[in-house]
């Protein structure tokens, strides 16, 4: 493969930074964005001032408060996060169309060949950082390398306000001293396994005999070792090639009420379908995810006869999957719904006998248009009125 330049862009403490932007008095203070500490909310994001106390995202709120009693808890202006994220992504897309948005605050850019347009790679990276800082007023870190994994790790390495460029050929030596957990695909379990073998750094993993590693990790061993050597051929895939659209929610307390589960599913189906329509995607596979209080998690999926981008169809199938799995009285901690098997330039076959699908499609398009103009709450399903009101609180 020819030489590539990949940039990983990651907004620093994104939610907390937006909160500081919305309320400048928070600046420099330990801001913790997350759920209610009395329930079992988790930290969605926290400012670097809070991180100094050992708080990190995904930590239970109760624990965060104990570590950082003076922390300022903010419940999160989630709609604003989306708004700022879009502004940042717009800037990135002005640099190159090859932008893969990984999450609300992270993206990969393939800027191979962009030097002719924007100047040397250092200049491109500085330009992006400078524009995000000045136009959106948000701190951002960048990692630049010839492949995604190294760009991502370089970005993490430089945080916050970082800009780390790993020149081609120096990937392995850059990665070598870093802790093994920094590598993609090394979670708690794998990390502990590797450490038990004395593999504490990425460099040690790269040098470990492959055969011995295979005994521990099986078929994972070789790809993981490739990554450890800074070899990653995966491409930057643009949003149009998204492979799934999903939505999930962790309840503030375990839910045993069927009605509430069904309404949650309906609300999420609306969001999934609307997102698919916005991206001109249709999908054939409907998937639900259920997590029980003991953290056991199951997913179930079904393939539709015809692709769809209609919430009614998604919801109907998701509900059928839920009914097949959920038994009266089961407590549910997390519920999710998603669509995969996506096709772009969406077309789906209309039905000969049921003309309701055309009317339904027109209805959904109209709802999209109303919400785009007047906001998400401008028009709602009556069955979700209570649900949305509670959610908004």
């Amino acid at each position: 493969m020819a030489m590539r330049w990949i940039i990983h862009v990651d907004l620093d403490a994104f939610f907390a930074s937006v909160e500081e932007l919305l309320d400048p008095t928070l600046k420099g203070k330990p801001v913790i964005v997350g759920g209610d500490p009395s329930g079992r909310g988790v930290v969605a994001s926290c400012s670097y001032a809070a991180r100094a106390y050992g708080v990190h995202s995904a930590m239970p709120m109760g624990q965060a408060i104990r570590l950082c009693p003076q922390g300022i808890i903010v419940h999160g202006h989630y709609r604003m996060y989306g708004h700022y994220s879009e502004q940042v992504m717009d800037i990135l897309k002005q640099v190159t169309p090859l932008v893969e948005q990984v999450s609300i605050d992270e993206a990969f850019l393939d800027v191979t060949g962009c030097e002719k347009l924007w100047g040397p790679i250092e200049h491109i990276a500085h330009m992006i950082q400078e524009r995000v800082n000045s136009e959106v007023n948000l701190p951002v870190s960048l990692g630049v390398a010839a492949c995604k994994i190294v760009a991502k790790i370089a970005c993490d390495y430089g945080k916050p306000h970082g800009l780390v460029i790993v020149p081609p050929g120096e990937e392995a030596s850059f990665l070598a001293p870093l802790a093994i957990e920094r590598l993609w695909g090394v979670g708690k379990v794998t990390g502990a396994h590797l450490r038990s073998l004395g593999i504490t750094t990425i460099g040690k993993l790269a040098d470990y005999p492959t055969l011995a590693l295979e005994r521990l990790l099986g078929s994972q061993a070789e790809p993981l070792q490739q990554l450890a050597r800074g070899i990653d051929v995966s491409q930057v895939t643009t949003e149009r090639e998204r492979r799934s659209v999903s939505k999930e929610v962790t309840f503030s307390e375990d839910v045993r009420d069927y009605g509430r589960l069904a309404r949650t599913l309906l609300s999420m189906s609306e969001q999934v379908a609307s997102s698919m329509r916005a991206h001109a995607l249709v999908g054939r596979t409907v998937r639900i995810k259920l997590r029980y209080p003991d953290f056991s998690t199951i997913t179930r999926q079904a393939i539709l006869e015809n692709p769809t981008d209609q919430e009614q169809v998604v919801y109907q199938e998701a509900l059928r999957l839920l009914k097949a799995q959920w038994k009266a009285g089961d407590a549910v901690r997390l519920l999710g719904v998603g669509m995969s098997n996506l096709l772009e330039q969406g077309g789906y076959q209309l039905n000969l006998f049921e003309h309701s699908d055309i009317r339904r499609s027109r209805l959904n398009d109209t709802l999209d248009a109303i919400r785009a103009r007047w906001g998400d709450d401008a028009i709602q399903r009556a069955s979700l009125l209570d649900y949305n009101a509670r959610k908004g609180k």
Partner: protein
Amino acid sequence: MRISCMQESLARGLATVSRAVATHSSLPILSNVLLASDKGRLKLSATNLELGINCWIGAQVEQDGQITVPARILADLVNSLPPERVDLQLVVRTNTLNLKCGRLEANIKGLDAQEFPLIIIPDDEKPLLLKAGMLAQMIDQVAFAAAQDDNRPVLTGVLADLSADTLTFAAADGYRLSVRKEPVEGVAWQSSVVIPAKALQELRRLSADADAPVSMLISRNRNQVFFHLDEIDLVSQLVEGSFPDYNAIVPTSYNTKTTLLTADLLSAIRMAYPFARDASNMVRLQIVPGGAEAVGKVVITASSPDHGDIVSELEATIEGTPVEIAFNARYLIDILSVVNTPQVTLTTRDPSSPGVFRPDNGPALEHVVMPMHIGR
């Protein structure tokens, strides 16, 4: 039973009844084929209780009798025999079929023929007489549109509607409908039944000579249909349930009528298909009427997110307003493959109403196909 026949005719007869042999039945005898002497000929018979086939072959009957043996074993053996005389003999004491051909001898363990379900065509009513070739054409033009899955069982069948002077075949899955009408004479009874599409396709396979007569009969209790061809009977259970009112589905008006060369359109859709496959099989037809000078044109496009796109343009005679409409390429290929006139017309109302394909100056054939919703 002592019967002799030629290997070729026995092999052909076994092939004829083979599709009716049950494959996974709880009744072992349904995996067998019945061999019976019948008025100086050998009758072969198989049934899976849904579909039954009788077939008679020329033979020399020295002693009457009957036996059933596993169809698969007998057919595999007979297909491998040299094209010579085959002698069949029933060993009554052991219920075994003894088969001799040249220097080969085989004994196949059988089951008593008394246990085998009889396939009898009633002769008390006057059958409808049809030409095999015409019937085959009607089946070809309609049966493909029947549903493949069992979501709505009635749609796995073909509606056969016999009125005073017309036989109508209609089939539909949820997305398309094909209707073929043919004038008939000498109708003694009227009836509207749903025949499994698979049974008709089997009948289609069996009818060789286009001019040969085929007679058709519905049982008095309206649960079976019988077809009799020269030396072959086919009986099928009918599909229960009422077929949707297809007349209500065929659009009565249109905004655009497009006439194209059938072969050119088929070829353009076939070329677009490899690209359409990645995008729910969608091909777009942009229909642009001509002016006073220019002829109209149809622009056919398909595009694959991964593999590229294709555009082709056909001249067409177009009356009415311009329209862009998308269809499943597979459906169009099915339809255009059975339109046997040089020109075909497509009438459309709007991008989300059904389009209708008809042969231009051909038999009374209509293919109604729902378009695909064009994404933004």
